[in-house]
Protein backbone atom coordinates (compact mmCIF):
# COMPACT_ATOMS: atom_id res chain seq x y z
CA UNK A 1 0.00 0.00 0.00
CA UNK A 2 1.31 3.43 -0.94
CA UNK A 3 1.81 5.65 2.10
CA UNK A 4 0.09 9.00 2.08
CA UNK A 5 1.85 12.19 3.07
CA UNK A 6 1.26 12.52 6.79
CA UNK A 7 -0.34 15.81 7.81
CA UNK A 8 -1.44 15.75 11.47
CA UNK A 9 -5.08 16.78 11.90
CA UNK A 10 -5.81 15.57 15.46
CA UNK A 11 -3.13 15.48 18.14
CA UNK A 12 -3.58 14.64 21.80
CA UNK A 13 -0.69 15.25 24.18
CA UNK A 14 -0.81 13.72 27.66
CA UNK A 15 -4.58 14.12 27.84
CA UNK A 16 -6.12 13.07 31.14
CA UNK A 17 -9.74 13.12 32.23
CA UNK A 18 -10.64 12.57 35.84
CA UNK A 19 -14.36 12.79 36.64
CA UNK A 20 -15.63 14.58 39.73
CA UNK A 21 -16.31 11.21 41.39
CA UNK A 22 -12.57 10.44 41.13
CA UNK A 23 -12.86 7.97 38.24
CA UNK A 24 -9.87 8.26 35.91
CA UNK A 25 -11.47 7.79 32.47
CA UNK A 26 -8.47 8.78 30.35
CA UNK A 27 -4.86 8.75 31.54
CA UNK A 28 -2.04 10.63 29.76
CA UNK A 29 -3.31 9.73 26.31
CA UNK A 30 -1.27 10.62 23.22
CA UNK A 31 -2.81 10.21 19.76
CA UNK A 32 -1.86 11.29 16.27
CA UNK A 33 -4.42 11.21 13.48
CA UNK A 34 -3.35 12.31 10.02
CA UNK A 35 -5.42 14.01 7.36
CA UNK A 36 -7.18 11.42 5.19
CA UNK A 37 -6.89 8.61 7.73
CA UNK A 38 -9.66 6.21 8.56
CA UNK A 39 -8.58 5.87 12.17
CA UNK A 40 -9.93 3.04 14.29
CA UNK A 41 -10.12 3.80 18.00
CA UNK A 42 -10.47 0.51 19.82
CA UNK A 43 -10.82 -0.62 23.38
CA UNK A 44 -12.95 -2.69 25.73
CA UNK A 45 -16.11 -1.19 27.27
CA UNK A 46 -15.22 1.60 29.70
CA UNK A 47 -11.78 2.12 28.16
CA UNK A 48 -12.43 5.85 27.70
CA UNK A 49 -13.28 5.93 23.98
CA UNK A 50 -16.45 8.05 24.20
CA UNK A 51 -14.86 10.35 26.79
CA UNK A 52 -11.91 10.90 24.44
CA UNK A 53 -14.21 11.70 21.51
CA UNK A 54 -16.17 14.16 23.66
CA UNK A 55 -12.97 15.88 24.76
CA UNK A 56 -11.77 16.19 21.16
CA UNK A 57 -15.15 17.72 20.22
CA UNK A 58 -15.13 20.22 23.07
CA UNK A 59 -18.05 18.65 24.96
CA UNK A 60 -15.86 17.70 27.92
CA UNK A 61 -12.89 19.57 29.28
CA UNK A 62 -9.74 17.51 29.88
CA UNK A 63 -8.30 17.63 33.38
CA UNK A 64 -4.79 17.85 31.88
CA UNK A 65 -3.12 17.87 28.50
CA UNK A 66 -3.57 19.52 25.13
CA UNK A 67 -5.82 18.67 22.19
CA UNK A 68 -5.40 20.22 18.76
CA UNK A 69 -7.77 19.71 15.86
CA UNK A 70 -6.61 21.05 12.50
CA UNK A 71 -4.14 23.22 14.41
CA UNK A 72 -6.84 24.72 16.67
CA UNK A 73 -6.56 24.25 20.44
CA UNK A 74 -9.91 22.75 21.50
CA UNK A 75 -9.75 24.28 24.97
CA UNK A 76 -9.18 27.78 23.63
CA UNK A 77 -11.59 27.75 20.68
CA UNK A 78 -14.13 24.90 20.90
CA UNK A 79 -16.64 26.57 18.57
CA UNK A 80 -14.03 26.77 15.79
CA UNK A 81 -13.41 23.04 16.18
CA UNK A 82 -17.15 22.30 16.11
CA UNK A 83 -17.39 23.95 12.69
CA UNK A 84 -14.95 21.50 11.12
CA UNK A 85 -15.98 18.25 12.80
CA UNK A 86 -19.08 16.11 12.44
CA UNK A 87 -20.08 13.57 15.06
CA UNK A 88 -22.35 10.55 15.20
CA UNK A 89 -22.66 9.93 18.96
CA UNK A 90 -22.98 6.39 20.28
CA UNK A 91 -26.51 6.84 21.66
CA UNK A 92 -27.78 9.27 19.09
CA UNK A 93 -31.27 10.68 19.59
CA UNK A 94 -33.50 12.19 16.92
CA UNK A 95 -36.43 14.59 16.79
CA UNK A 96 -38.72 11.72 15.93
CA UNK A 97 -41.67 13.76 14.65
CA UNK A 98 -39.56 15.49 12.00
CA UNK A 99 -38.88 14.06 8.57
CA UNK A 100 -35.25 13.42 7.66
CA UNK A 101 -35.40 16.36 5.24
CA UNK A 102 -36.59 18.74 7.99
CA UNK A 103 -34.03 17.30 10.41
CA UNK A 104 -31.13 17.86 8.03
CA UNK A 105 -32.36 21.33 7.04
CA UNK A 106 -32.42 22.23 10.76
CA UNK A 107 -28.85 21.05 11.32
CA UNK A 108 -27.66 22.65 8.07
CA UNK A 109 -28.88 25.98 9.46
CA UNK A 110 -27.46 25.31 12.93
CA UNK A 111 -24.07 24.66 11.28
CA UNK A 112 -24.43 27.87 9.24
CA UNK A 113 -24.50 26.18 5.84
CA UNK A 114 -25.30 29.08 3.45
CA UNK A 115 -28.99 29.28 2.57
CA UNK A 116 -28.30 28.90 -1.15
CA UNK A 117 -26.37 25.65 -0.57
CA UNK A 118 -28.78 24.00 1.87
CA UNK A 119 -31.42 22.88 -0.64
CA UNK A 120 -28.67 21.23 -2.72
CA UNK A 121 -26.61 19.80 0.13
CA UNK A 122 -29.49 18.09 1.97
CA UNK A 123 -30.61 15.90 -1.01
CA UNK A 124 -26.93 15.25 -1.78
CA UNK A 125 -26.19 13.78 1.66
CA UNK A 126 -29.50 11.89 1.70
CA UNK A 127 -28.46 10.34 -1.63
CA UNK A 128 -25.00 9.56 -0.27
CA UNK A 129 -26.43 7.61 2.69
CA UNK A 130 -29.16 6.03 0.54
CA UNK A 131 -32.36 7.37 2.14
CA UNK A 132 -33.40 10.07 -0.33
CA UNK A 133 -36.60 8.16 -1.16
CA UNK A 134 -37.58 8.34 2.57
CA UNK A 135 -36.91 12.05 2.99
CA UNK A 136 -40.56 12.88 3.75
CA UNK A 137 -41.15 9.99 6.16
CA UNK A 138 -41.21 10.90 9.89
CA UNK A 139 -38.08 9.65 11.65
CA UNK A 140 -40.06 7.57 14.17
CA UNK A 141 -41.00 5.27 11.27
CA UNK A 142 -37.33 4.59 10.42
CA UNK A 143 -35.55 1.33 11.17
CA UNK A 144 -32.36 1.37 13.25
CA UNK A 145 -30.23 1.10 10.13
CA UNK A 146 -32.01 4.05 8.49
CA UNK A 147 -31.56 6.12 11.65
CA UNK A 148 -27.83 5.37 11.63
CA UNK A 149 -27.66 6.50 7.99
CA UNK A 150 -29.52 9.67 8.94
CA UNK A 151 -27.11 10.21 11.84
CA UNK A 152 -24.18 9.97 9.45
CA UNK A 153 -25.96 12.36 7.05
CA UNK A 154 -26.37 14.85 9.93
CA UNK A 155 -22.71 14.54 10.85
CA UNK A 156 -21.58 15.43 7.30
CA UNK A 157 -24.22 18.05 6.45
CA UNK A 158 -21.71 20.90 6.88
CA UNK A 159 -18.95 19.14 4.88
CA UNK A 160 -16.65 18.70 7.90
CA UNK A 161 -12.97 17.90 7.52
CA UNK A 162 -13.24 15.17 10.17
CA UNK A 163 -16.07 12.91 11.26
CA UNK A 164 -16.30 10.94 14.47
CA UNK A 165 -18.40 7.80 14.35
CA UNK A 166 -18.97 6.22 17.76
CA UNK A 167 -20.09 2.62 17.18
CA UNK A 168 -21.84 3.39 13.87
CA UNK A 169 -22.77 -0.23 13.15
CA UNK A 170 -23.95 -1.12 16.66
CA UNK A 171 -27.07 -3.30 16.46
CA UNK A 172 -27.15 -3.45 12.67
CA UNK A 173 -27.56 -6.64 10.63
CA UNK A 174 -24.64 -7.77 8.40
CA UNK A 175 -26.08 -6.02 5.33
CA UNK A 176 -26.57 -2.81 7.35
CA UNK A 177 -22.97 -3.03 8.56
CA UNK A 178 -21.70 -3.47 5.00
CA UNK A 179 -23.76 -0.49 3.80
CA UNK A 180 -22.39 1.77 6.56
CA UNK A 181 -18.84 0.61 5.76
CA UNK A 182 -19.36 1.59 2.13
CA UNK A 183 -20.66 5.03 3.17
CA UNK A 184 -17.60 5.55 5.38
CA UNK A 185 -15.29 4.46 2.59
CA UNK A 186 -17.02 6.77 0.09
CA UNK A 187 -16.79 9.70 2.52
CA UNK A 188 -13.08 9.14 2.90
CA UNK A 189 -12.32 8.70 -0.79
CA UNK A 190 -14.85 11.03 -2.47
CA UNK A 191 -15.25 13.82 0.12
CA UNK A 192 -11.67 13.48 1.46
CA UNK A 193 -13.01 13.37 5.00
CA UNK A 194 -10.82 12.09 7.81
CA UNK A 195 -12.74 9.42 9.71
CA UNK A 196 -12.30 8.63 13.42
CA UNK A 197 -14.27 5.52 14.23
CA UNK A 198 -14.85 3.36 17.29
CA UNK A 199 -16.24 -0.13 16.99
CA UNK A 200 -16.15 -3.49 18.71
CA UNK A 201 -16.29 -5.21 15.32
CA UNK A 202 -12.58 -5.70 14.78
CA UNK A 203 -13.00 -7.38 11.40
CA UNK A 204 -14.87 -4.32 10.19
CA UNK A 205 -12.15 -2.03 11.54
CA UNK A 206 -9.38 -4.01 9.86
CA UNK A 207 -11.31 -3.84 6.56
CA UNK A 208 -11.84 -0.08 6.49
CA UNK A 209 -9.17 1.55 8.67
CA UNK A 210 -5.58 2.25 7.72
CA UNK A 211 -4.50 3.12 11.27
CA UNK A 212 -5.69 2.09 14.72
CA UNK A 213 -5.17 2.92 18.36
CA UNK A 214 -6.01 0.47 21.11
CA UNK A 215 -6.82 1.91 24.52
CA UNK A 216 -7.20 0.03 27.74
CA UNK A 217 -8.36 1.53 31.05
CA UNK A 218 -7.90 5.02 29.64
CA UNK A 219 -4.32 4.43 28.53
CA UNK A 220 -2.93 3.99 25.05
CA UNK A 221 -1.88 0.38 24.65
CA UNK A 222 -0.90 0.48 20.97
CA UNK A 223 -1.08 2.76 17.96
CA UNK A 224 -0.01 2.36 14.37
CA UNK A 225 -0.80 1.38 10.79
CA UNK A 226 -2.59 -1.97 10.75
CA UNK A 227 -0.04 -3.71 8.48
CA UNK A 228 2.83 -2.41 10.66
CA UNK A 229 1.13 -3.82 13.77
CA UNK A 230 0.57 -7.18 12.07
CA UNK A 231 4.26 -7.29 11.14
CA UNK A 232 5.27 -6.26 14.68
CA UNK A 233 3.06 -8.74 16.54
CA UNK A 234 3.41 -11.57 14.01
CA UNK A 235 6.67 -12.54 15.66
CA UNK A 236 5.39 -12.02 19.22
CA UNK A 237 2.07 -13.85 19.11
CA UNK A 238 2.99 -17.44 18.26
CA UNK A 239 0.02 -19.43 19.54
CA UNK A 240 -1.71 -19.79 16.16
CA UNK A 241 -0.51 -21.30 12.89
CA UNK A 242 -2.74 -18.84 10.95
CA UNK A 243 -1.66 -15.30 10.05
CA UNK A 244 -2.47 -13.00 12.95
CA UNK A 245 -5.41 -10.59 12.80
CA UNK A 246 -6.27 -7.29 14.43
CA UNK A 247 -8.40 -9.29 16.87
CA UNK A 248 -5.32 -11.25 18.01
CA UNK A 249 -3.41 -8.00 18.52
CA UNK A 250 -6.35 -6.45 20.40
CA UNK A 251 -6.64 -9.35 22.84
CA UNK A 252 -2.87 -9.52 23.27
CA UNK A 253 -2.33 -5.84 24.10
CA UNK A 254 -5.44 -5.48 26.28
CA UNK A 255 -4.54 -8.62 28.27
CA UNK A 256 -0.95 -7.46 28.66
CA UNK A 257 -2.26 -4.19 30.01
CA UNK A 258 0.90 -2.56 28.74
CA UNK A 259 1.13 1.07 27.76
CA UNK A 260 2.73 2.61 24.73
CA UNK A 261 4.91 5.58 25.65
Amino acid sequence: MERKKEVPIITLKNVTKKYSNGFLAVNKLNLNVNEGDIYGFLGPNGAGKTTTIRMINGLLTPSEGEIKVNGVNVLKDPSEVKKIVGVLPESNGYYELMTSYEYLMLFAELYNVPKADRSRRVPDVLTMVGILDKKDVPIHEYSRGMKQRLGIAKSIIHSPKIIFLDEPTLGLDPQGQKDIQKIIFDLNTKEKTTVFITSHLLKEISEICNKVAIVNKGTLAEEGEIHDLINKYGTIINDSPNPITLEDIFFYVTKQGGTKQ
Partner: protein
Amino acid sequence: MNLALIKKEIKSQALSQKGIWIYLAVTLLMSCLSVAFISVKELSLLAQSEVLVTFLKLFMAISVLLVIILGATMFSSEKEQGTLENLLLTPLSKLNIAVAKVIGILSFWLILSLLALPYIYALTFGTDLFIKVIALMYFVGLLLVCSFTCVSIAISAFLSSTKNATLLSIMVFLITALPVFLSTATKKFGIAHFLDQTSPISTSQLTIKNYLVNKYGLLVVFSNVIPVIFFIVVSILILIYASSKLTLKEGE
Protein backbone atom coordinates in the same frame (compact mmCIF):
# COMPACT_ATOMS: atom_id res chain seq x y z
CA MET B 1 -29.70 34.14 17.92
CA ASN B 2 -30.40 31.18 15.64
CA LEU B 3 -33.72 31.43 13.80
CA ALA B 4 -33.82 27.75 12.84
CA LEU B 5 -33.66 26.67 16.47
CA ILE B 6 -36.24 29.27 17.51
CA LYS B 7 -38.59 28.06 14.75
CA LYS B 8 -38.06 24.46 15.87
CA GLU B 9 -38.84 25.35 19.49
CA ILE B 10 -41.96 27.33 18.55
CA LYS B 11 -43.14 24.44 16.41
CA SER B 12 -42.52 21.86 19.12
CA GLN B 13 -44.10 23.92 21.93
CA ALA B 14 -46.69 26.36 20.60
CA LEU B 15 -47.76 24.58 17.43
CA SER B 16 -47.46 20.94 18.47
CA GLN B 17 -50.25 18.44 19.00
CA LYS B 18 -49.52 18.64 22.74
CA GLY B 19 -49.88 22.44 22.58
CA ILE B 20 -53.23 22.20 20.78
CA TRP B 21 -54.63 19.84 23.43
CA ILE B 22 -53.52 22.26 26.15
CA TYR B 23 -55.18 25.18 24.32
CA LEU B 24 -58.40 23.19 24.10
CA ALA B 25 -58.33 22.27 27.79
CA VAL B 26 -57.60 25.85 28.90
CA THR B 27 -60.27 27.22 26.58
CA LEU B 28 -62.80 24.82 28.08
CA LEU B 29 -61.76 25.85 31.58
CA MET B 30 -62.02 29.57 30.73
CA SER B 31 -65.46 28.99 29.20
CA CYS B 32 -66.72 27.32 32.40
CA LEU B 33 -65.19 30.05 34.56
CA SER B 34 -66.64 32.83 32.42
CA VAL B 35 -70.15 31.35 32.55
CA ALA B 36 -69.84 31.04 36.33
CA PHE B 37 -68.52 34.59 36.69
CA ILE B 38 -71.14 36.14 34.42
CA SER B 39 -73.85 34.34 36.43
CA VAL B 40 -72.65 35.77 39.75
CA LYS B 41 -72.20 39.20 38.14
CA GLU B 42 -75.77 39.13 36.79
CA LEU B 43 -77.01 38.25 40.25
CA SER B 44 -74.98 41.21 41.61
CA LEU B 45 -73.23 38.88 44.03
CA LEU B 46 -69.80 40.17 43.07
CA ALA B 47 -68.52 43.45 41.64
CA GLN B 48 -67.32 43.26 38.05
CA SER B 49 -63.80 44.32 39.04
CA GLU B 50 -63.67 41.53 41.66
CA VAL B 51 -64.75 39.05 39.00
CA LEU B 52 -61.94 40.23 36.73
CA VAL B 53 -59.37 40.04 39.52
CA THR B 54 -60.34 36.42 40.19
CA PHE B 55 -60.31 35.54 36.47
CA LEU B 56 -56.93 37.17 35.94
CA LYS B 57 -55.42 35.49 39.03
CA LEU B 58 -56.66 32.11 37.85
CA PHE B 59 -55.42 32.67 34.30
CA MET B 60 -51.99 33.65 35.60
CA ALA B 61 -51.83 30.66 37.95
CA ILE B 62 -52.73 28.31 35.08
CA SER B 63 -50.20 30.06 32.79
CA VAL B 64 -47.38 29.81 35.33
CA LEU B 65 -48.11 26.15 36.08
CA LEU B 66 -48.16 25.27 32.38
CA VAL B 67 -44.92 27.10 31.54
CA ILE B 68 -43.25 25.49 34.55
CA ILE B 69 -44.24 22.01 33.37
CA LEU B 70 -43.14 22.74 29.79
CA GLY B 71 -39.93 24.49 30.89
CA ALA B 72 -38.92 21.63 33.17
CA THR B 73 -38.94 19.25 30.21
CA MET B 74 -36.88 21.43 27.89
CA PHE B 75 -33.33 20.25 28.55
CA SER B 76 -34.06 17.17 30.66
CA SER B 77 -36.14 15.55 27.90
CA GLU B 78 -33.38 16.30 25.38
CA LYS B 79 -30.97 14.55 27.75
CA GLU B 80 -33.33 11.58 28.13
CA GLN B 81 -33.88 11.25 24.38
CA GLY B 82 -30.19 11.71 23.54
CA THR B 83 -30.78 14.78 21.36
CA LEU B 84 -28.91 17.26 23.55
CA GLU B 85 -25.48 16.01 22.48
CA ASN B 86 -26.22 16.87 18.85
CA LEU B 87 -27.25 20.41 19.84
CA LEU B 88 -24.13 20.89 21.96
CA LEU B 89 -21.98 19.67 19.08
CA THR B 90 -23.10 22.57 16.89
CA PRO B 91 -21.20 25.89 17.05
CA LEU B 92 -24.19 27.49 18.84
CA SER B 93 -23.53 28.86 22.31
CA LYS B 94 -25.34 27.20 25.21
CA LEU B 95 -27.05 30.47 26.05
CA ASN B 96 -28.34 30.69 22.48
CA ILE B 97 -29.91 27.25 22.85
CA ALA B 98 -31.49 28.26 26.18
CA VAL B 99 -32.87 31.53 24.76
CA ALA B 100 -34.48 29.63 21.86
CA LYS B 101 -36.23 27.43 24.41
CA VAL B 102 -37.46 30.45 26.39
CA ILE B 103 -38.87 31.94 23.17
CA GLY B 104 -40.58 28.62 22.35
CA ILE B 105 -42.42 28.67 25.68
CA LEU B 106 -43.25 32.37 25.48
CA SER B 107 -44.81 31.82 22.05
CA PHE B 108 -46.95 29.09 23.63
CA TRP B 109 -48.06 31.53 26.34
CA LEU B 110 -48.72 34.24 23.74
CA ILE B 111 -51.24 31.96 22.01
CA LEU B 112 -52.76 31.10 25.39
CA SER B 113 -53.13 34.81 26.20
CA LEU B 114 -54.75 35.47 22.81
CA LEU B 115 -57.28 32.73 23.57
CA ALA B 116 -58.10 34.53 26.85
CA LEU B 117 -58.91 37.82 25.07
CA PRO B 118 -62.54 37.02 24.08
CA TYR B 119 -63.29 35.94 27.64
CA ILE B 120 -61.77 39.11 29.07
CA TYR B 121 -63.80 41.12 26.56
CA ALA B 122 -66.97 39.35 27.67
CA LEU B 123 -66.20 39.85 31.37
CA THR B 124 -65.35 43.54 30.93
CA PHE B 125 -68.31 44.24 28.64
CA GLY B 126 -69.95 47.57 29.46
CA THR B 127 -66.95 48.88 31.45
CA ASP B 128 -63.66 50.63 30.70
CA LEU B 129 -61.64 47.82 32.27
CA PHE B 130 -60.69 45.90 29.10
CA ILE B 131 -57.49 47.86 28.39
CA LYS B 132 -56.50 47.80 32.07
CA VAL B 133 -56.90 44.03 32.27
CA ILE B 134 -54.94 43.53 29.02
CA ALA B 135 -52.18 45.82 30.30
CA LEU B 136 -51.95 43.80 33.52
CA MET B 137 -51.92 40.51 31.66
CA TYR B 138 -49.15 41.55 29.25
CA PHE B 139 -47.10 43.36 31.90
CA VAL B 140 -47.38 41.56 35.24
CA GLY B 141 -48.44 38.26 33.64
CA LEU B 142 -45.63 38.30 31.12
CA LEU B 143 -43.07 39.12 33.83
CA LEU B 144 -44.24 36.17 35.94
CA VAL B 145 -44.38 33.78 32.98
CA CYS B 146 -40.90 34.84 31.81
CA SER B 147 -39.47 34.40 35.31
CA PHE B 148 -40.87 30.95 35.91
CA THR B 149 -39.93 29.87 32.37
CA CYS B 150 -36.31 30.86 33.02
CA VAL B 151 -36.25 29.14 36.43
CA SER B 152 -37.78 25.87 35.18
CA ILE B 153 -35.51 25.75 32.11
CA ALA B 154 -32.52 26.38 34.41
CA ILE B 155 -33.64 23.50 36.64
CA SER B 156 -33.98 21.22 33.61
CA ALA B 157 -30.44 22.19 32.56
CA PHE B 158 -29.09 20.96 35.90
CA LEU B 159 -31.14 17.76 36.19
CA SER B 160 -31.17 14.75 33.86
CA SER B 161 -34.66 13.50 34.72
CA THR B 162 -37.80 15.22 33.44
CA LYS B 163 -39.76 13.95 36.43
CA ASN B 164 -37.31 15.42 38.96
CA ALA B 165 -37.05 18.71 37.04
CA THR B 166 -40.86 19.04 36.97
CA LEU B 167 -41.22 18.24 40.68
CA LEU B 168 -38.49 20.70 41.66
CA SER B 169 -39.94 23.46 39.45
CA ILE B 170 -43.39 22.99 40.99
CA MET B 171 -41.79 23.11 44.45
CA VAL B 172 -40.17 26.45 43.58
CA PHE B 173 -43.55 27.75 42.43
CA LEU B 174 -45.25 26.57 45.63
CA ILE B 175 -42.56 28.17 47.80
CA THR B 176 -42.92 31.52 46.01
CA ALA B 177 -46.72 31.20 46.25
CA LEU B 178 -46.63 30.30 49.97
CA PRO B 179 -47.94 33.68 51.26
CA VAL B 180 -51.09 33.25 49.16
CA PHE B 181 -52.10 30.34 51.39
CA LEU B 182 -51.54 32.26 54.64
CA SER B 183 -54.36 34.05 56.45
CA THR B 184 -54.53 37.86 56.38
CA ALA B 185 -53.78 38.07 60.12
CA THR B 186 -50.67 35.88 59.80
CA LYS B 187 -49.33 37.99 56.94
CA LYS B 188 -49.34 41.13 59.08
CA PHE B 189 -46.34 40.21 61.24
CA GLY B 190 -42.83 38.75 61.20
CA ILE B 191 -41.49 36.43 58.55
CA ALA B 192 -44.92 35.87 57.00
CA HIS B 193 -45.17 39.63 56.44
CA PHE B 194 -41.73 39.70 54.82
CA LEU B 195 -42.60 36.75 52.56
CA ASP B 196 -45.87 38.38 51.57
CA GLN B 197 -44.12 41.64 50.68
CA THR B 198 -41.38 39.95 48.62
CA SER B 199 -43.12 36.99 47.00
CA PRO B 200 -43.54 37.60 43.25
CA ILE B 201 -46.85 35.73 43.29
CA SER B 202 -48.47 37.62 46.18
CA THR B 203 -47.13 41.01 45.03
CA SER B 204 -48.42 40.41 41.49
CA GLN B 205 -51.83 39.56 42.97
CA LEU B 206 -51.69 42.73 45.07
CA THR B 207 -50.81 44.73 41.94
CA ILE B 208 -53.87 43.37 40.12
CA LYS B 209 -56.15 44.13 43.05
CA ASN B 210 -54.76 47.63 43.64
CA TYR B 211 -55.10 48.55 39.96
CA LEU B 212 -58.52 47.06 39.23
CA VAL B 213 -60.40 47.17 42.55
CA ASN B 214 -58.72 49.84 44.66
CA LYS B 215 -58.14 52.03 41.55
CA TYR B 216 -54.67 53.12 42.72
CA GLY B 217 -52.47 55.18 40.41
CA LEU B 218 -49.66 53.86 38.26
CA LEU B 219 -46.98 54.89 40.78
CA VAL B 220 -48.41 52.62 43.47
CA VAL B 221 -48.89 49.86 40.95
CA PHE B 222 -45.24 50.08 39.83
CA SER B 223 -44.04 50.07 43.42
CA ASN B 224 -46.13 46.93 44.03
CA VAL B 225 -44.53 45.20 41.08
CA ILE B 226 -40.87 45.80 42.13
CA PRO B 227 -40.46 42.29 43.69
CA VAL B 228 -41.72 40.78 40.41
CA ILE B 229 -39.13 42.78 38.45
CA PHE B 230 -36.44 41.72 40.93
CA PHE B 231 -37.56 38.08 40.51
CA ILE B 232 -37.25 38.20 36.72
CA VAL B 233 -33.75 39.67 36.94
CA VAL B 234 -32.71 36.88 39.34
CA SER B 235 -34.40 34.27 37.11
CA ILE B 236 -32.53 35.47 34.02
CA LEU B 237 -29.22 35.36 35.92
CA ILE B 238 -30.02 31.83 37.11
CA LEU B 239 -30.75 30.78 33.52
CA ILE B 240 -27.49 32.31 32.25
CA TYR B 241 -25.55 30.47 34.96
CA ALA B 242 -27.40 27.17 34.39
CA SER B 243 -26.89 27.28 30.63
CA SER B 244 -23.16 27.90 31.10
CA LYS B 245 -23.05 24.72 33.22
CA LEU B 246 -25.13 22.71 30.75
CA THR B 247 -23.30 19.50 29.97
CA LEU B 248 -23.79 15.82 29.42
CA LYS B 249 -23.76 13.67 32.52
CA GLU B 250 -20.24 12.50 33.30
CA GLY B 251 -19.58 9.03 31.99
CA GLU B 252 -22.99 8.98 30.30
